[in-house]
């Protein structure tokens, strides 16, 4: 394939990636851009060219051992839900913009520590990035079948231009806002897309090698078995091999958290916490599927192409050897995708560190003071853009001058070992509040020194075919100081050996110096916030401890330098509103200081923001005891407010219960009032009659005798009515008393009913209504006969009231069933309206359906019936399915 065509394809592909990134930036809020799948796929930036090409080379030489690099992340994944979530929460809260910022903030916004972390990251990532570029160059070479390295000028080297385009891409989409804690949707979306592409194409080539070039996996294994040291490639080997495996897994476990590009995609670009839930299962699955074919491609290559070619590029060489250029092209683009995403995300992450943790805090802070906000903004952005170009160009030159002798795999591991030096201060610092900046700095320093001595220097020397004496005999010819076998540990491979020693000593130094020295109060303050992040997320600004004197106007001026007048004023107004402070507040408190520092952190890093804000405030030293007391108070405040919440919930429940009880009482009261009204009315009516008539009789001596008689009769009637009423009320009250005893005797129910009917015949006759006793056979039951007559009288009298004149038919029947006597009283009146049915047995209740507006009776009749039946251990109820009138049932035990 001509290099021109290939270059054109590359340019087209890059243009397509630009389009995708533009699309994502334009649709920042779209579901397509913000979803857990995109988030998970962006984790795929872990699989760089190292995975894509390097692991095949490693598998060809070392067998299944290459897997260790992927087992670490798979083991780490379930822990993300705890560990990564905590890191994400802290980062969001403090507007963290990089790994260096995170670590520096944990140790009290320590400027030096931030810079140190930045340098460590640069050391780890620059060579690694250069190796990515190397793979582009080498694969380009393979595809076009001529060597690019032969050209003497970088200007004729396609890799140089590809690198430049990547730098433009990263600078364009990575520096859109000054606030580096803002999300970069364009880059992340294109990274996710590339993750998908490389994964897909890798699986295609895997299937091609396994099922088209060979007859499946067993065919490859059988052919491979016969020709090489098969056994050693499918096992971990001895006890030493196991150690190597273990440490490599540990190394990759750390790397998945701490590689700047992983921190960038997993923490800083995390949009929603819940996306993690998808990532913890989907990303391990992605890795597993990615690695399924590695070993078979490696062995297929060994069988077909032998040992003469670079095993790292089997994926390209195998299809090319079969003349399948299209497939090779896909593989090339997959590899290119791996490179692009790694280079872009890494250079972006590093550029933020360089600007916020290295350049701005060391020397450029004073520059901002005099300038305008727009200028400052542009200045910060430009620092980052220059940093991106710097990183990519340095990587390119590294590759240009040294590359030939380094394998992808070994450089990848060196990068991991260097990054692992940050692990003690990162991980231990998250859970141990005593960890101090002194311990962190010394630990990282010593760890890096050991890595240099045991790994980096020997590696560089050997790569350049130098073999100085100390490599073989140890430093100063001391046996114990052999770089690859420090203190006699000689069974580990150089990277795991270096990791073992540097990491162990690093941890030790970190713990030792943390314990031996007290950090200052600021450090302890942030330590508490990080370690106890769950509590302090609620506390927010309150968790920050500060004492001193500061003017709001001074702080506002600092904010204006970066945010502009409008934004700064708005931010302060929001702050004042949140804490209910007047807008003209003069003195700043700890909350405002913390708030302002946070506002600036995204733009210039936490250390710089601290320095800037501190430059305008007078801070007083606080003792550690005081810090802890204030923090303790804040925690107590939270606990108290929680307790308050519970209490107030209880109270509101109680209030509701009271409200209900009150409603019931009001209803009862209303019923009682209505009852009293009715009783009063009933009592007043006969009295009114008596009074008026008496007056007439007294005043009118000349009244005719017939008239006199009539009036006297009326008076008698009224008097009787009055005494009847009083009797009913008293009777009801008597029955209500629990001390009232029935006078039970053995009676025949048929006779009792007959007696009740007999007493009502006059009343029934007035309305020409018929009362029929259907059952007449005798049943003897033990009951209070007078009371039962009262029950029947009430029921029948009610029925008479409600039936139409001349049409009324009231029937009474009874039967034996289940040792019980069941009596039914039915009428053909207008029945009882549904809404009244459940109340009719309540005392004082009077149905609204009486055909008169004026209520008849006292509202006590049915209540009295119920009381009597209850006292007989029986039951009385209305048959609400009966529609042709009212039907009452009585049930009485036959004892």
């Amino acid at each position, binding site marked *: 394939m001509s290099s021109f065509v290939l270059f054109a394809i590359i340019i087209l592909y890059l243009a397509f990636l630009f389009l995708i990134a533009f699309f994502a930036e334009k649709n920042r809020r779209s579901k397509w851009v913000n979803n857990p799948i995109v988030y998970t796929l962006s984790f795929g930036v872990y699989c760089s060219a190292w995975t894509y090409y390097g692991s095949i080379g490693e598998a060809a030489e070392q067998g299944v051992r290459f897997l260790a690099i992927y087992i670490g992340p798979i083991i780490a994944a379930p822990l993300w839900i705890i560990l990564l979530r905590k890191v994400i929460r802290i980062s969001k809260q403090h507007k963290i913009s990089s790994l260096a910022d995170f670590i520096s903030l944990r140790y009290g916004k320590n400027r030096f520590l931030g810079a140190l972390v930045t340098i460590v990251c640069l050391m780890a990532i620059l060579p690694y990035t250069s190796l990515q570029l190397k793979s582009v160059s080498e694969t380009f070479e393979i595809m076009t079948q001529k060597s690019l390295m032969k050209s003497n000028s970088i200007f004729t080297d396609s890799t140089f231009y590809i690198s430049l385009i990547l730098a433009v891409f990263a600078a364009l989409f990575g520096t859109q806002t000054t606030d580096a804690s803002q999300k970069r949707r364009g880059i992340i979306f294109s990274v996710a897309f590339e993750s998908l592409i490389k994964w897909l194409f890798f699986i295609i080539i895997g299937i091609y090698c396994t099922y088209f070039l060979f007859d499946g996996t067993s065919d490859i294994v059988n052919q491979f078995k016969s020709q090489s040291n098969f056994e050693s490639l499918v096992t971990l080997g001895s006890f030493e091999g196991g150690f190597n495996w273990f440490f490599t897994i540990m190394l990759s476990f750390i790397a998945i958290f701490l590689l700047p590009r992983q921190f960038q995609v997993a923490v800083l670009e995390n949009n929603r916490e819940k996306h993690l839930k998808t990532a913890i299962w989907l990303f391990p699955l992605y890795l597993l599927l990615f690695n399924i074919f590695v070993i078979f491609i490696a062995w297929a290559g060994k069988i077909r192409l032998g040992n003469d070619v670079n095993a790292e590029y089997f994926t390209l060489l195998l299809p090319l050897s079969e003349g399948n250029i299209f497939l090779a092209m896909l593989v090339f683009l997959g590899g290119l995708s791996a490179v692009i995403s790694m280079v872009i995300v890494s250079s972006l992450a590093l550029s933020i560190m360089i600007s916020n943790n290295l350049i701005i805090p060391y020397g450029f802070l004073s520059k901002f003071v005099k300038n305008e906000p727009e200028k400052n903004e542009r200045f910060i952005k430009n620092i980052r853009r220059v940093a991106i170009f710097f990183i990519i160009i340095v990587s390119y030159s590294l590759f240009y001058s040294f590359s030939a002798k380094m394998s992808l795999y070994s450089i990848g591991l060196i990068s991991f070992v260097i990054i692992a030096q940050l692990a003690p201060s990162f991980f231990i610092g998250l859970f141990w509040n005593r960890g101090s900046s002194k311990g962190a700095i010394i630990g990282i320093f010593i760890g890096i020194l050991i890595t240099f001595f045991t790994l980096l220097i020997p590696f560089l020397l050997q790569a350049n075919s130098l073999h100085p004496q100390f490599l073989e005999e140890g430093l100063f010819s001391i046996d114990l100081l052999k770089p690859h076998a420090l203190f006699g540990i000689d069974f580990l491979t150089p990277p795991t050996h270096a990791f073992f020693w540097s990491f162990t000593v690093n941890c030790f130094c970190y713990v030792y110096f943390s314990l031996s020295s007290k950090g200052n109060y600021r450090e302890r303050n942030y330590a508490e916030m990080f370690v106890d992040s769950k509590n302090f997320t609620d506390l927010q600004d309150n968790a920050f401890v500060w004492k001193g004197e500061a003017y709001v106007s001074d702080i506002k001026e600092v904010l204006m330098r970066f945010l502009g007048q409008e934004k700064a004023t708005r931010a302060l107004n929001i702050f004042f509103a949140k804490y209910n402070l007047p807008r003209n507040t003069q003195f700043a408190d700890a909350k405002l200081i913390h708030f302002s520092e946070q506002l600036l952190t995204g733009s210039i890093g936490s250390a710089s923001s601290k320095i800037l804000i501190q430059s305008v405030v007078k801070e007083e030293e606080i003792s550690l005891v005081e810090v802890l007391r204030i923090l303790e108070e804040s925690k107590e405040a939270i606990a108290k407010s929680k307790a308050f919440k519970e209490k107030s919930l209880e109270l509101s429940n109680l209030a509701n219960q009271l409200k209900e009880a009150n409603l019931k009482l009001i209803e009862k009261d209303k019923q009682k009032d209505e009852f009293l009204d009715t009783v009063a009315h009933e009592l007043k*009516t006969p009295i009114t009659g008596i009074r008026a*008539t008496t007056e*007439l009789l007294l005043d009118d001596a000349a009244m005719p005798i017939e008239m006199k008689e009539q009036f006297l009769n009326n008076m008698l009637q009224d008097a009787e009515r009055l005494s009847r009423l009083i009797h009913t009320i008293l009777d009801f009250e008597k029955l209500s008393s629990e001390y009232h005893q029935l006078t039970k005797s053995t009676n025949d129910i048929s006779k009792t009913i007959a007696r009740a009917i007999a007493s009502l015949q006059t009343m029934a006759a007035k309305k020409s209504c018929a009362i029929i006793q259907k059952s007449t056979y005798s049943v003897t039951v033990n009951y209070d006969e007078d009371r039962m007559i009262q029950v029947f009288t009430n029921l029948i009298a009610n029925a008479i009231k409600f039936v139409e004149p001349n049409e009324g038919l009231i029937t009474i029947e009874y039967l034996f069933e289940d040792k019980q006597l069941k009596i039914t009283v039915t009428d053909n009146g207008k029945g009882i309206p549904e809404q009244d049915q459940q109340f009719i047995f309540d005392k004082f209740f009077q149905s609204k359906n009486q055909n008169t507006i*004026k209520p008849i009776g006292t509202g006590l009749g049915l209540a009295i019936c119920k009381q009597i039946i209850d006292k007989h251990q029986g039951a009385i109820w209305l048959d609400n399915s009966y529609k042709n009138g009212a039907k009452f049932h009585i049930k009485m035990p036959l004892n």
Partner: protein
Amino acid sequence: MKKILIVDDEPNILMALEYAFKKNDFEVFIARDGSEALEILKNEHPNVVLLDIMMPKVDGYQTLQIIKQNENLKDVKVVFLTAKSKKEDIEKGFSLGVDQYFTKPFSTKKIIAEINLLLQE
């Protein structure tokens, strides 16, 4: 001759009132409830209606409202005579436009005197 319509569902009270007003030179009409009263008012034009409130079918309030809405009965005075003696009942009565409010039990002499007074206005 002054005309009065007495409306009450209690026959004993009605009887006493009828006798007392006739004795005092009123022409008396009687009704047992609101609907009977309204029937009578179609043909008769009394000077005053003496009205109970708690009655079957059409109660005193409804009867009062119907009378007050009728242009022909504009000059008819309406007086409540009721057992409802609570303050809010009396207020309700006056708010509906009743001309006088008497509570039961009552003195016939006093009622006749008051009604005569009312008719002189």
